[in-house]
């Protein structure tokens, strides 16, 4: 369970300018929920996701992840949480172009010190599960967008995280592969993963059990 208590994120692009990307957001997401965060670009939804994903720490307020305040954690503890508890899926897939699909999926496990043989087994079974059994040796640029996003989902699942954070996961995909990817994510949620999707696509939001609408850094609905 993740709980945001009056969270602020303020940027200071220069001495005299303050930009409040997130203004006093309070939000609780329970284990196994599917929440869509919607809002226009610049509304602060991505910042909110970064905060929930432990990529960033709030300027003010608390974020409790399973009861622990992440704003008080040091960078290596945050890295550990990002590696083990959270799986990220990005709009532009963010695969490492010099690594094969298999190696990309193995990457998060390397940082957790998973034994080589187990790492390989896990990566292979994830890719097979996502229908990429015959693409494991391919480099990202040899794969279609939909395939790349499925590799990214496999990577997000590598360390068996509790929560998946997806930032516009279908934004770069045609409608057919977009639907496939969304179905995959929804399927994962049905198997118990907490799913948070940031999107401005209403059709995706409709599938969520809860919609959180953001405007100017605040929750409006």
């Amino acid at each position: 369970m993740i709980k945001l208590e009056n969270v602020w994120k303020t940027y200071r692009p220069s001495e005299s300018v303050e930009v409040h990307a997130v203004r006093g957001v309070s939000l609780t997401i329970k284990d196994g929920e599917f929440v869509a965060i919607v809002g226009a670009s610049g509304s602060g939804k991505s910042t909110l996701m970064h905060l929930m994903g432990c990529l960033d720490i709030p300027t003010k307020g608390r974020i409790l992840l399973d009861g622990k305040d992440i704003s008080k954690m040091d960078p290596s503890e945050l890295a550990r949480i990002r590696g083990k508890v959270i799986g990220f899926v990005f709009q532009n897939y963010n695969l490492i172009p010099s690594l094969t699909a298999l190696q990309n999926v193995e990457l998060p496990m390397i940082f957790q010190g998973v034994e080589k043989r187990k790492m390989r087994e896990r990566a292979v079974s994830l890719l097979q599960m996502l229908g990429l059994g015959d693409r494991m040796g391919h480099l990202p640029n040899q794969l279609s967008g939909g395939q790349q996003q499925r590799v990214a989902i496999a990577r997000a699942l590598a360390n068996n995280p509790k929560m998946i954070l997806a930032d516009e996961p279908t934004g770069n995909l045609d409608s057919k592969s977009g639907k496939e990817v969304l179905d995959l994510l929804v399927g994962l949620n049905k198997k118990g993963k907490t799913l948070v999707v940031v999107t401005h696509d209403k059709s995706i939001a409709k599938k969520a059990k809860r919609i959180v609408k953001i405007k100017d850094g605040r929750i409006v609905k």
Partner: protein
Amino acid sequence: MKDYINLAVINLKHRRLRSWLTILGIVIGIAAVSSLVSINQGLMEAINSQFESMGTNTIMILPGTEGSTSPILNMLGSPLKMSDNDVVENVPGVDYSIPLYYKAVNVEFRGDKKSIFMYAIPSKDGEKLTDLFASVGLKEGRSLKRGDMYKAIVGYNVYKNVFNDKVSVGSYIKIEGKKFKVIGIMNEIGNRMDDNQISIPLEAAREIFGESDRIDMIMVKVEEGRNVEDVAKAIKLKLKNHRGTEDFQVLTSKELLERAKTILGLVSIVFIAVAAISLVVGGIGIMNTMYMAVVERTRHIGVMKAVGARDVDIMMIFLLESGIIGLIGGLIGLSIGLGFAKIVEVYAASAMQTKLLKASFDPLLIVGSLAFSFIVGVISGVMPARAAAKMNPVDALRYE
């Protein structure tokens, strides 16, 4: 760790040309340093063994003032005389002393004429000289002995290479027109100058060249158990009294060795410093490449952080990359450097006929060069790797 190395290698392969160009910088530096160190070490070893052949209880007395190392200039000074040898011989602690007379002479063998460096010693001292250079020894024949007149001992090169035909014991050679019988052949010493000599009795030299008193060097053997430096001091004092002025040098073999090593050491420091500069340039090249890699891979750094990489993990990946660049450069540079040193050795042996220039393949040099090149790589990578590790994940992910 193995996975990190794997990642580093994949990244290096991904930008192959640039990696090789960067490696080249280190290759040149390590090749220069390792070949110079190798030759330098070989030279040191050769000089040591040369002096060992002379023995540690030997003293040489040369005309000329201290500090002048040129034997030619020294010979222009006031020469030593036979009476100097008598003075030296009677200094306590001197086992024996041998006066030497040098001259470049024309030698003819079976119609083949050559100019050869000759040294003459009193015939009675022949055995002593052989004793002094016991580690060189005679290949064939015997030393000069009391009563020998037109007899000669030839150096290894004179026997083997100087003339069209090989000179053998019992052959006759003509020195300045006088017929000499070859009675001995020296073993190979290993450098051209020493192996190209001829030795004859002083008595015969006096007759041919007329200079009845001049000598060019006195070699002294110190009695066993005596302190060589003390004896050298005593010789200096006595000889100064006798000659009235200190226009000569008394050198112990240890001193000579030190002197040679000092000069060699200075020369090599200069050369190695120059070579080291190229290594620094190579290191800067690595740093540049790594900074470029960090900037280019900013987003990947963000991704790696998002999937759980700690700062140290990122740091490690980049340091390994730069370290591997250094290490590969070191491996290639070392092979080239040692190969070059070996070529110098072979060339020196064939063209300059000296075995003094030897390539040393000291394991310490090999391991040291590799470790050093790896360290140069790592150090060059520290700043870029730190920049990578310290990146804010959100900014890194947003980087276009």
